[in-house]
Structures are given as C-alpha cells and as structure tokens.
C-alpha cells in the first residue's frame, strides 16, 4: 500500500476525517469509507452520470476525482437532499411524475438537476434535455424525468407567487 493522505471533508453538513491512499476515487470514498451508498457507480469513466455529487455547489463526477482532492471541500450527495419523511421538492416531483423505475440512475439525475434548477429555475424543455444529456437511464425513456423537472419548476414558481 502506498502512503496515506489525510482527508477532511464536509459531506451533507457532517465533517469526516479519514486517511486514504491517493488512488482512492471519491466515489469509493463516499461509499466504502463513509457508507454513503446512495452515490452509485456504473461505468467509472465519466459516461453514465450515476456517481454525480454536488462538489462546492457544482455537479461533478465522483468517479473522476480522487478522494484526496476533496480535502477541505464540501460535498452534497443524494442522502443530503431530503429524507424519506421530508423529500426534496425535486424528489417529490420525481415520485409524482414516475421519473424512476429501478432508480439506479436517480441519485445522479437529482444531484445534476438540483444545481441546474438553482441556476435556471425556469428551464425550457430543450435546456432540461441538455442538462441531463450526461446521465444515462435504461428504464424510463427520459420523458418522465423531463416531466418531473418541469413539475418541480412549476411548483416552485407557484410557491414563490403565494
């Protein structure tokens, strides 16, 4: 085993400190070291998007970063978005619009779309499709995912108006 490096990272608001080999991928760190298995791993070469996490506010591939590189940074994974009792509005919209079947892809869609909707609360359908172009889903055919994003955007607009 090679030299270990300290990693101090805030994940979903909790601070964690671990010592890791530099070759440990951030995705494996989240799953194996922290037990946060909501972040899924599909391809490990940046193509499928299921490992997406929110890194300092931006969606990134956790399979294309080393855990050491997260030292001093802040991460939100799907576990940090909502709880089963208190879903994130986008999770609720996914539920209502049937935007998931097996759900293997869902964590990556959610972590991609939460920062996207913060930046662009009123997206067009084309913008939504472009935003999710880097996430693969083998079940839904994407249509219901697009519908869910529209639903979430409409609901947040309606809420803002009341």
């Amino acid at each position: 085993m090679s030299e270990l490096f300290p990693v101090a990272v805030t994940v979903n608001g909790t601070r964690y400190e671990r010592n890791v080999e530099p070759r440990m991928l951030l995705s494996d760190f989240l799953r194996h070291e922290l037990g946060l298995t909501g972040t899924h791993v599909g391809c490990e070469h940046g193509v499928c998007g299921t490992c997406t996490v929110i890194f300092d506010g931006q969606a990134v591939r956790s399979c294309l970063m080393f855990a050491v590189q997260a030292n001093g940074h802040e991460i939100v994974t799907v576990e940090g978005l909502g709880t089963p009792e208190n879903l994130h509005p986008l999770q609720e919209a996914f539920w209502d619009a049937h935007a998931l079947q097996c759900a293997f892809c869902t964590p990556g869609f959610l972590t991609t779309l939460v920062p996207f909707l913060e930046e662009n609360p009123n997206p067009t359908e084309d913008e939504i499709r472009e935003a999710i172009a880097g996430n693969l889903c083998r079940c839904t055919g994407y249509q219901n995912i697009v519908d869910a994003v529209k639903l979430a955007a409409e609901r947040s607009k309606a809420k803002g108006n009341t």
Partner: protein
Amino acid sequence: MKPAPFKYYAPTSVEEALAHLAEYGYDAKALAGGQSLIPTMNFRLAQPSVLVDLNNISDLFYISPDENGGLRIGAMTRESQIEHSALVAERAPLLYEAMPHIAHPQIRNRGTIGGTLAHADPAAELPAVSVALNGRFRLRGQVGERWVSADEFFVGFFTTVLEPDELLVEVALPPMPPRSGWSFQEVARRHGDYALVGVAAMVTLDDRGRCQQARLVFLSVGEGPVEAHQAAATLKGQAPTPEAIRAAAETAASADVDPSSDIHASAAYRRHLVNVLSRRALEQAFERAGLRD
C-alpha cells in the same frame, strides 16, 4: 476497475510542480481536471507512477483581458468558467460558442482549458478553436518558458510539442480583427458526445466586403486539428456569394480532408459532413462579419 498506485503531490506553485515533473520525467503526469486522465487510469490504460495535481495552484485560474484587446486564460481555468464568461463572449465569441459542445455540464465543471489542449484529442473542440483563433500557448519548464502558436503545438494523435517536464500555463488569444465573423458547427450523435465532425471558422472581410482571410479548422477528421488551406485560398479576394461558399465547402470536403472510417461514422459520411458544415459555418461567419466593424 481502479487506478494503479501512484505517488501524489499537490503543489501550490508552478515552480514546485515543475520541480516534481523534472524529477520524475516520463513517469509523472500532471493532473488537471482529470476528466481524460482519470478514466484512462481507471481502465489502467495509463499507469503513471507519479501524479502532480495542479488544482491547488491558484495562479493558474484566471480569465483576464489583454491590453491588446485579446484575452489571457490560465491553464487551470475550468471549461464551465469559460462557458459562462461575459469577457470571453465579447472578446472570443468563437470560443464562447464552442464551449457547450464539450462533453456534459458535470465534466465541464472539472475539465480545464489547459487539460483539453495538452490532451490533444483529435475529436476535441478547443484544439481546432485555438488554431482558428491564432492562439498562442505559454509553456514553462524548469529552465525557462517558451511561446508556441496553436498551429505548431499540435503534432499528431494525442501528441503535442510539450516535453514531459513542461507545463502549459497560459493561453493567449489575439483580438478579433475588424469586419470579422465566426461560426462553430458540429454534428454529434447526442449532445455532449464527441463530434463525428466539427468545424471552427473565422473570416475577415476587406473594406470592400470581399474575403480578406478565411480559416476553417476541423475536428474528428484527422490526427489533430485539420485546417482547410485550399478551401480558404478559393475564397481569398472573392465576394462571399452563395456560389463561392458552396465551391469552398466542396473543396474542403474533396481536397482538404482525408477522414477515416470508424465505428461512429464512415469516411464518406464524414466527408459529406465536412461539406455541409463548411457551408453552414461560412454562411454564418460571413453574415456576422458583415454586421460587425
């Protein structure tokens, strides 16, 4: 799969990074956004024994206006920062328009301009764009620095003039000449996929509205960015009429490029795309040149 073990350095200055690269030579690799390097390490296609991480070198992250009206961009500037920069939109609109074609938002949030240029993927957008814009790159080694034009930087399939102990530290883009227009066009199977063919076009009109200079630089049709010199020569001194544009596009497809077939597209289809995209790019670029002075 998982990467093989490596020694890891995370320097905070360029000098320190260069010292590590000089010490380990071909065994070391610079780690920029990691969006090309880490996939190849995950597959163990690359097994560098030393990684020199550039992500903590704050001096390499910037987009700044150059006194001459152009732009200076630090090598570690993320693709997404360039994509959202008003300064880039104003001073290098060709670069600005090409950005959303690179991969996906999650990749652009990490991937860097220096990384994509140093990687020199023949299907990548920015090598072609930097040639079309007459970009110049500042390369630094322990013994000193040198400037290399984009033209001379790319020497083949995933190959540049960078020595193993050198870093690309800065990209300089000259100001756009007056009466210039630009266009970026590509065809990909799915938004964000590597292009089957793409083209970066820059044109400049003279004061009588004739073509003074045209540059068409293609991606995904050769071992690196491929410039259509013969098509450009047919346009020089001509009024940019639909006929002249059509003839130039045909010259580009028949004489300037020699694409090959792969699982994504046949050579014949790529040639067809060169023709169609050249025409679209030239039409748009000349129209824009006429609107700007």
